[in-house]
């Protein structure tokens, strides 16, 4: 198969995503008061409603409706005042009633948009000139959201007796209804994505947004956030869509990128050989790095949708929507802009700190402890050092940043300090002192060393004066050696330069 970059020169990939997110931070299920399950024994959290017992009736969880309205507002959707729940029928025992309660043509949230900033290597995936690129090749891709609707999750089935728990060849299947009825929101994008990188970024941005809203733990690994991709190819310049395939089993950001990359290349090969892309559902196999056919869709499924008579319609009031709006915290884009404006951070650093709400909160707490005058150092530490550690406190990072800011330690020493204090309550400043790592910047004490080195290394001094400025590094090294590591290299650098130039 050809490489992605080569394929995308001739072909345009048209990608749409369907993203299911469980509202894991709620206490109870969508239509009953059973607890949400995390690692419970099978059929622990069940009641007549979520088991679909005859005679049971649903009552919508108000907090779930608030959550989806918040999700809609945060993704610039129109909040539809009037909408209803519908019944979507299919016979499969993971849905206890053999219908899923979901929404019909009108969802709570319609017609939203998220703007993606694509930069670096990822931006190179898009060779076409339909987007305006900046000097570094980066661009902004506006991705329209068709809708976000509210529904309920299905039960978990375990297939027994087949290969690797797969359905094929299984002798029987066991059903656990703990997950059945978990509040689920489904977001459907317009087919506006053009590269695997854009798809990956969209999912990341969506995840950051939902995490910030606090409506879900958004774990692709555990399946609380799940993504299906629809993909088709068309020749560059063509306006008609090609036949699309649907990709399932995408459980990491890398899988999303790699599965789409594979599928684009596979479809291109089929088309270039004069073959036909069939409308089918394909399964991503991460271990074999390929997609395989799960099911060919000959006709559209007929789900016999109709408005659920057991559930009253919704006519959301301004008051309800305003209440949801007031609960939305500062979103990642706004936070990034604020970090840039208030602290003068670089866009990429600000975006990294603002993206994850726990990182942002850590950063802001650290900054409060370290003082805003050290913001540049704090940001540098947060971006470059902190991600390697799992158990640092904001106070420790603030202290460390202070040491770096006053040149008491080097960046290399900072790692050593963090290695030592990670997971303890020890203050980095105390650690540095206890281990004699604090570097002197006292010009009197350091001046003697500088003079000694200049007197000793006459050759290098001459080379410097002849124009070889690089030799300064050697002289700094000599000073450091003479100071037995306790002198600050920046201070030596400055003093040597002054004396040599003077």
């Amino acid at each position, binding site marked *: 198969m050809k490489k992605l970059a080569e394929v995308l020169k001739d072909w345009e990939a048209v990608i749409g995503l369907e993203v299911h997110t469980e509202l894991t931070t709620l206490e109870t299920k969508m239509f009953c008061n059973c607890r949400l399950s995390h690692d419970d024994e099978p059929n622990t959290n069940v009641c*007549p409603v979520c*088991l*679909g*017992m*005859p*005679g*049971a*009736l*649903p*009552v*919508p969880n108000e907090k779930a409706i608030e959550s989806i309205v918040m999700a809609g507002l945060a993704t610039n959707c129109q909040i539809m005042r009037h909408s209803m729940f519908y*019944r979507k*029928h299919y*016979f499969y*025992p993971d849905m*206890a*009633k*053999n*219908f899923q309660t979901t929404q019909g043509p009108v969802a709570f949230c319609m017609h939203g948009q998220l703007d993606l900033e694509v930069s670096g290597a990822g931006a190179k995936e898009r060779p076409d000139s339909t987007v305006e690129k900046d000097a570094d090749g980066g661009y902004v891709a506006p991705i329209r959201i068709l809708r976000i609707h509210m529904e309920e999750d299905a039960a978990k089935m375990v297939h027994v007796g087949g290969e690797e728990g797969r359905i094929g060849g299984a002798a029987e*299947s066991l*059903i656990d209804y703990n997950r059945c009825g978990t509040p689920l929101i489904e977001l459907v994008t317009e087919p506006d994505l053009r590269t695997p990188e854009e798809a990956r970024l969209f999912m990341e941005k969506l995840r950051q947004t939902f995490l910030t809203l606090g409506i879900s733990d958004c774990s692709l690994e555990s399946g609380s956030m799940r993504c299906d991709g629809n993909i088709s190819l068309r020749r560059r310049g063509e306006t008609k869509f090609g036949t699309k395939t649907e990709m399932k089993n995408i459980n990491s950001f890398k899988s999303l990128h790699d599965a789409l990359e594979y599928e684009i290349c596979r479809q291109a090969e089929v088309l270039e050989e004069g073959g036909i892309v069939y409308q089918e559902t394909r399964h991503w196999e991460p271990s074999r790095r390929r997609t395989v056919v799960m099911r060919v869709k000959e006709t*559209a499924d*007929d789900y*016999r*949708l*109709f408005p*659920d*008579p*057991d*559930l*009253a319609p919704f006519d959301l009031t301004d008051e309800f929507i305003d209440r949801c709006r007031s609960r939305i915290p500062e979103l990642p884009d706004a936070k990034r802009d604020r970090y840039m404006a208030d602290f003068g951070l670089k866009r990429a650093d600000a975006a990294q700190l603002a993206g994850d709400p726990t990182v942002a909160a850590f950063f802001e707490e650290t900054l409060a402890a370290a003082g805003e005058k050290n913001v540049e150092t704090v940001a540098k530490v947060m971006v470059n050092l902190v991600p390697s550690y799992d158990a640092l406190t904001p106070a420790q990072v603030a202290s460390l940043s202070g040491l770096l800011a006053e040149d008491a330690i080097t960046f290399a020493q900072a790692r050593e300090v963090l290695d030592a204090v990670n997971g303890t309550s020890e203050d980095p400043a105390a650690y540095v002192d206890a281990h004699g790592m604090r570097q002197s910047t006292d010009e009197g004490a350091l001046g003697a060393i500088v003079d000694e080195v200049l007197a000793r290394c006459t050759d290098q001094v001459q080379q410097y004066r002849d124009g070889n400025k690089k030799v300064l590094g050697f002289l700094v090294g000599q000073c450091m050696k003479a100071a037995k590591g306790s002198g600050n290299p920046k201070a030596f650098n400055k003093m040597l330069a002054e004396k040599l130039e003077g």
Partner: protein
Amino acid sequence: MANFDQLSAREIAAGVANGDFTATEVARAALDAVEARDGEVKAFLQVSADLALAAAEATDKARAAGEKLGPLAGVPVAFKDNMHLVGTRTTCASKMLANYESTFTATCVQRMLGAGATPVGKTNMDEFAFGSSTESSAFHPTANPWDTERVPGGSSGGSAAAVAAGEVTVSLGSDTGGSIRQPASLCGVVGLKPTYGAVSRYGVVAFGSSLDQVGPFGRSVEDVALAMNALTAGGRDPWDSTSQPVATDFLAHLNDGVEGRRVGIVPALMEAAGLTDEVRDAVTAAGRALQDQGAELVEVELPNIASAIAAYYVIAPCEAFSNLARFDGVRYGYQEPGQATLAEQTSLSRAHGFGEEAKRRQMLGAYLLSSGTYDKYYYPAQQVRTLITADYARAYEKCDVILMPAAPRTAFKFGEMSDPTQMYASDMFTISNNIVGNGGVSVPLGLGATSGLPVSAQLQGPAFADATLLTFARAIERSNSASDGSGAPVAPAFAGKGGELA
């Protein structure tokens, strides 16, 4: 001492409260009457003697402890077998649920028990409430106590027959297209279908979710009013989204006069094809009786009511298909043994668990909801529903209640109506009220001049005017010289058989 079948619910509750007799004595009398009478009537699918005696004992203990007793203290009641009661099976008169053990108790049942009622058992019905004769019960037919060669009507035929035969004082039924009012008419008892939402549907196996409503049967209007108080006094049911509060004391205005109030007559309905002369004459006489008490008869039109049956036979099968999809033999219900695959197990369990009419209705619903067909029938049927609702709203600008027949004719013989679509027409006077959701009550008018079988009138009213319906029903009852104005008699063949209060 008296036979319990001669006592009204109020008299029993008062007798128990005063210590004239104990709840246990009444329970034993009722069980004795069932023993003596039900071999012939076959109103019951299950007699819950243990539950009845335990409830009665609890009532007697409460009295001994000086506690205030409920308004239905010691009153023997029966529940249609689509209502869950823990400690009983809930079969819906279907092989599908022949062994289904209730896992929770329906709100309506719980409220009757909470008012002190004694649960005597579960009554026969048309399978899943599909029918108008109780002949489609998978277990056995129920006889009309006035002529045991004839049907009791349906689908709540067992509940109507149990009250008519004096086996219980009050019973509950459900009415989707006339299933309380038509059997009440055929069995000569009072049967009220309250306004949709007045009584909780939680725990009642659904047939048509936008049409179903639970209501009481009694031999007097007062007993029905007492039961309505028990069913609604607890306020709306938070477990039923369509439940609404009813802030009415149904006894308070029971004996109000009707002078100066207006009773609507729909001329077209009084001349409807299929309406027998004896029923027409009896309804006309009931109108005159109201006139004699000072009410004014006014003509009103319901121009779209002729389409109610068609609208109903779109909406009801669609909802039935959806509601019965859950019966797949996995979580509960009949499971075809020895099947190698899920698909075979499901379709054979459904084929063999459901009776003919249940399969017909689901097939019709599955067809009507299919894409393309939905727009031809389902959506327009719901639009016609709007027109019929508007017809009634206009009519109630001119009158307080509408007087019409409940059933076109008296009880027919077993097997007499064999064509399902012919059977559908027997609900011609009741169905429109389910379509719009309003309340309706069937009031006994003694025996028909020709057949010698019970005939009745139906009163329909605007939404949540169910207490007004009972005021008018009481006015008709008061004028009935055959029963000296105190309510309908127990069918003579069964009156006094067993049931003596020891």
